[in-house]
């Protein structure tokens, strides 16, 4: 009887493993979205440590508000010369930049998405919030133990400065641990490692270490004081609020 039970457990395990193996790239992308955008909203404080190719370090502080997988507001709080600079990401590829010195918002044209935001190694596109399943097609390159290596490319109609991105994700939670992005010439331009933490029922990126391969610089974005589901109003994610600093 115990032998029969053992066979049953073994068969179940193999079957469930096969099921995970059998996930299509689209299903994997959907799983990623489900985990990453599980909270209805979140607010966090970010510390950005920028290191140039010579090892010189600069620090920025920011507050980030996010609602679902569609809206994000990012506003620098320090140093004083940068305080108030803000970036708003909205659905349909809409992005706005606010520079307090000019006192007005400016829409970010598609071609500027590959520009670094305020001297960091994150481009506007990197900071844009968008769901993977709705923006990319995938192709599984490799599966090894708990690791899935997925190549994603922008879907037709999606503007991206990256021709493809190789995402290494953990099969246990479907969270990306590493991303490598390539330009249209096929050259590696960005590499990021993600360290995830769990708070209650939700995962969040405790640290994202973004490296700009061409510049030889890097930025570590460290999240602190993360709050989930505080019922953020849609009004926060408006140009009206963006320009109010």
């Amino acid at each position, binding site marked *: 009887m115990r032998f029969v039970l053992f066979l049953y457990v073994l068969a179940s395990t193999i079957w469930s493993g096969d099921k995970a193996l059998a996930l299509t790239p689209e299903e994997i992308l959907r799983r990623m979205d489900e985990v990453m955008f599980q909270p209805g909203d979140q607010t966090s404080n970010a510390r950005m440590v920028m290191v140039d190719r010579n090892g010189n370090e600069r620090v920025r502080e920011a507050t980030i508000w996010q609602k679902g997988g569609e809206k994000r507001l990012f*506003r620098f709080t320090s*140093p004083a*010369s940068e305080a108030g600079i803000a970036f708003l990401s909205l659905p349909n590829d809409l992005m706005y930049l606010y520079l307090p010195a000019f006192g007005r918002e400016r829409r970010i044209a598609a071609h*500027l998405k590959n520009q670094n935001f305020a001297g960091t190694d994150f481009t506007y596109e990197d900071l844009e919030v968008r769901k993977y399943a709705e923006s990319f097609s995938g192709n599984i390159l490799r599966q090894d133990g708990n690791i899935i290596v997925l190549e994603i490319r922008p879907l037709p109609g999606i503007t991206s400065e990256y021709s493809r991105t190789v995402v290494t994700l953990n099969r246990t939670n479907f969270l990306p641990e590493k991303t490598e992005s390539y330009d249209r010439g096929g050259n590696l331009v960005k590499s990021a490692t993600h360290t995830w933490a769990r708070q209650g029922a939700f995962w969040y990126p405790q640290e994202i270490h973004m490296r700009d391969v061409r510049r030889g610089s890097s930025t570590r974005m460290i999240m602190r004081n993360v709050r989930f589901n505080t019922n*953020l109003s849609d009004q926060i994610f408006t140009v009206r*609020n963006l320009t109010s600093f």
Partner: protein
Amino acid sequence: MIIAAEEPAGVILRGELLTDQRVFTGNENDWAWNENRLDLRLSKRTDRIRFNANVWLRHLGVGYIGGTHALQSRDNIYPWNLNIREAYVEVRGFLADNLDLKIGQQLINWGTADFFNPTNMLNSADLEDAMDFGRKNGTLALNLTWFFHPEWSLQGVYIPRFSPANLPIGEFGGMFHSQIALPQGLILHQYSDNVQLPRNNFTEGATVGARLKGFVLGTDISISYIYGREQLPLANTVFISSANILAAPAMVNINSNVFFPRYHMAGADFAGTIGNVGVWGEAALFFPEKDVVLTTDFSQLHGLPIGTPGMSQDSLLLSDEPFLRYIVGFDYTFPNGIYLNVQYLHGFFHERGRGNQNDYLLVALERSFFGNRLLLRPLAGGIAIANWDNPNENHALFFTPEIFYRGIDNLELGIGAFIFDGKGSNIFAGFRHLDMITVSARMSF
């Protein structure tokens, strides 16, 4: 109800310390500009109410010592001034969730073009620094914005009191002065004028504006209307009187009355992208309320042939025909990070009346290096054409390269130049002997 994005806090004090020094390359390297500015920004916010103020405390210019008695005053030696740029209260969700109110001294955003906004005639122009075109003065205003749709808003502004533009100081002080053509054989001895400000009540001095702003087909657009007054005065009467008729040529005094005529303005603007290029445009169509007729009175020219009592001459200074000012521009960032901004402007804000608008091509090219630590703007400036029939004799060139070092947080050091050339009577051509080198330092806190 609106939920504030930022946490309520105590009084927030931000600001910067700026020193801006300019020296003429000619004129025996006289000092062209000396400004040391403490720029303070105060804000206090609660969930729905925000108070904002911006104050400049400045040591500006060089002292004027009219005699030894003037040395007894530090203010003569170290001239300074206090300028309340803005002081207003903003109520978000005033009367209704989607209605915002701003009341007090404020700068009002109007138009979408980059820096030069032909439709923005609400705030008076601050021309004090002739090299800082586009700077505006804060204006006492009641400013209501109704966000009636996620992508549309309607704004109404009421400015109860008229404020004229303040004119440039220093070597550039005369750049907006009108030329007065005297009859042959006469030269000017003394000039004086009387400024007729509109009556200081709720109607005569008031300016009103409305703006509908929205987002259509990936493009930010707005249309606007303003009923206001010209910010630079126009003369309506000139009295010419004898000063010394025995001199050859005879010398005369001129006294004129100047005023600020009314106009209606209809404006439209847009900002969007075409392919990978950012584009914008803004146009303002002005409808002067009345013809401005200049009456030149020669009746006080006793002893001269044209000095017949009662004799005067009328000339049309500003027709009530509508005239247009506009700007179109584009910007593009090349893959290597070089940023290019090009604008074509038809009509500076002081160029009034149909056919009196000059054309300006403005270009800026910049690139950051070393992680934004160094900003180079090697190509910045423009070309002005005052008369397309004879551009060789009616043009101006201005070149304003700059380098900024931002290697230390909160500190910016700059060095640059203002280089002018040109021919004819347009204002920039008049600067051709006023090339400058500039050095600045800015510290934020």
